[in-house]
């Protein structure tokens, strides 16, 4: 046992340090891939690095990144939220509808409504999942259908046209600050704040505990159900906010808004190194994952690849990213195991 069997703390320390470095490398790794994709494309076509293009890279990824943050909170607890896409759609449309019928409505109210809608749907997801102990994948899949249906009833084929959206609102979609799109800034702030909270607050650590070992979490007095509930509410609220920003970005919305986002977001989060079965992963990684996927997609068009090839290549790269992340975590595990072995050597 350890008492009899342990090398100098220095030795172990360094080993674990290395393991830790590798752990951090999950984010670093994605960053590297990101830079490579960007570099290669730019070398191939210099305009890929010009202001407009970069701005679009950022604001294009902003929405998915935002959704990815919420999705991460949920996935870390061993759950998943497939309803985000439909929430984006509903929230975007309802806000647009309000603007068209009450032109005077203050912009901020638009955001409030969106966040509110998302939070309510998230609360429903959360309650059914946490209180009734129903697999979230099924619950949120069902919610995806339901919200889409409701959205359809609301939209009823009437499109929200740009002229009805207050310019102050649309401005958020394209205005930049110091050359950085507001969308990207908002997403960035959300990522930073949530990342910090996930690391430095008990509630944040609770989420990891729940996903890492639910029974242990319960025994440690973690209020699992309440935390999971909160995670879903948060995910929903972010989806609602994303809906508002979707409207700001496109200045118009019909029923197609946000369709298919659910898979996109999960993909981004997974690429971002968040373990699909909970317990580990960071919102920073998720955001980077979103940025990476968006960059890849645009790089393909920008490199004049026939548009028929985009989807296939995107899919292949996605698989590559997942495999890469797996390889990385395996190395971490090996690092720990070797450290462990050494740990017990006499």
């Amino acid at each position: 046992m350890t008492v009899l069997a342990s090398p100098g703390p220095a030795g172990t320390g360094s080993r674990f340090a290395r393991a830790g470095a590798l752990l951090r490398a999950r984010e670093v790794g994605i960053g590297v891939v990101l830079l490579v994709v960007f570099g290669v494309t730019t070398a191939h076509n210099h305009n890929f690095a010009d202001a407009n293009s970069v701005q679009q890279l950022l604001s294009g990824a902003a929405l998915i990144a935002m959704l990815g943050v919420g999705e991460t909170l949920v996935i870390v607890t061993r759950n998943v939220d497939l309803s985000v896409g439909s929430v984006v759609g509903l929230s975007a449309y309802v806000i647009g509808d309000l603007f068209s019928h009450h032109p005077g409505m203050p912009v901020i109210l638009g955001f409030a409504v969106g966040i509110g809608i998302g939070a309510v749907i998230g609360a429903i997801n959360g309650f059914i999942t946490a209180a009734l102990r129903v697999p979230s994948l099924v619950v949120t899949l069902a919610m995806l259908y339901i919200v889409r249906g409701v959205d359809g009833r609301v939209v009823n084929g009437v499109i929200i046209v740009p002229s009805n959206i207050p310019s102050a609102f649309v401005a958020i979609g394209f205005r930049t600050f110091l050359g950085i799109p507001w969308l990207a800034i908002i997403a960035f702030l959300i990522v930073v704040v949530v990342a910090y909270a996930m690391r430095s607050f008990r509630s944040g650590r609770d989420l990891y505990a729940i996903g890492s070992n639910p029974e242990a979490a319960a025994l440690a007095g973690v209020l699992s159900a309440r935390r999971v509930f909160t995670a879903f509410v948060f995910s929903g609220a972010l989806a609602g906010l994303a809906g508002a920003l979707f409207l700001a970005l496109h200045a118009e919305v019909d029923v197609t808004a946000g369709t298919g986002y659910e898979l996109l977001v999960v993909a981004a989060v997974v690429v971002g190194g968040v373990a699909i079965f909970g317990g580990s992963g960071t919102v920073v990684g998720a955001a980077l994952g979103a940025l990476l996927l968006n960059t890849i997609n645009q790089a393909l068009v920008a490199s004049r690849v026939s548009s028929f090839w985009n989807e296939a290549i995107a899919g292949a790269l996605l698989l590559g990213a997942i495999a890469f992340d797996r390889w990385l975590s395996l190395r971490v595990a090996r690092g720990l195991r070797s450290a462990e072995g050494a740990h017990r050597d006499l």
Partner: protein
Amino acid sequence: MTTTRARQRRLVSALVLALVGMTAAACSSSGSSSGASGSGTSSASSSSSASSSSGGAIKKGLVVYFIPKDTQNPYEVIADKGGEKALAELGGKVVVSSGTQDTAAAQIPSIQAAIQAHANAIVIAGNDPSALCPSLNQAASAGIKIVSFDSDVDCGSSPDHLFINQANTEQIGTSEVSLLASEIGSKGQIAILSAAASATNQNAWIKYMKQELAKYPNMKLVTTVYGNDDPATSLQVLQGLLSAYPNLRGIISPTTVGISTAAQYLDTHKNLLSHLTLTGLGLPSQMRKYVEDGTVAKFELWNPSNLGYLAGYAAAALASGTASLTPGGSLGSYTVLAPAAGTGPSVVLGPPTVFDKSNVSQFNF
């Protein structure tokens, strides 16, 4: 009797209104496609007599199933309303039925429902050129008349069906190109921002655009990108397009989602306007903002409500046997055109309306 007369009068007035509206638009559209405006006037002048000649024999109580691409497509919702208007005036009824996704699979149950409900006619906008043919065949063999609009189904003669062409396919292709050419001085790189790669009408128009482009040696079509009629995708491919071809001078987007997305982007990146011109097919309601603030100078469309109205009228006429699919045959004021490459017998609504600052605000669709 009196009631029917009243209805006929309303029908007449409606047709006239619709067509006159178009003519006005055509004339005001600063001389582009003059041939088009000509045909417009002719149909207008003949409309009243035509409609009265046919209206009388239209059966009452006809049930027509309108099957749009999906129940949410704003353009088609307007068209369906037009159809409902027509059938209401003809004493029949329209059932709008389709899926939530614009796939053929989602439309098939609606066709089946029409069969089960012993409908008199089906008016369909095909999500897929061929996938619907087997089901439509079943409908036809159940005695249901088939009319296609907006996006034709390419079933050859099984079943026989009438295609209500929003505007002569070739004419759209050519006029789109000439619109753009006139704006960019007939030279430079241009690109097409289309909907789904499999959309029949899109591909048909693009084919003719390419033909037309042969006449402009200095205009080069560098690529066609597909936004799948989804704003996000459209925006993404547009951006890629712009960084891939920095010297791009013009974009044609023959789809309402594509053109409005592109317009919104240009509107928010005015620096691009100095060298980039956008045109295509769009809804005035969607585009008004961009036309009025100068982001887009001109774009085209026809009145989807009139299209639906005509389709509904045609369906009723076919179901009543007052119109036939034989080329040269008459449908109200319209003549049935002989089958051409890719389409069976068809009727052309008229030339597309060109919208610009002067008229964009007059249209509510």
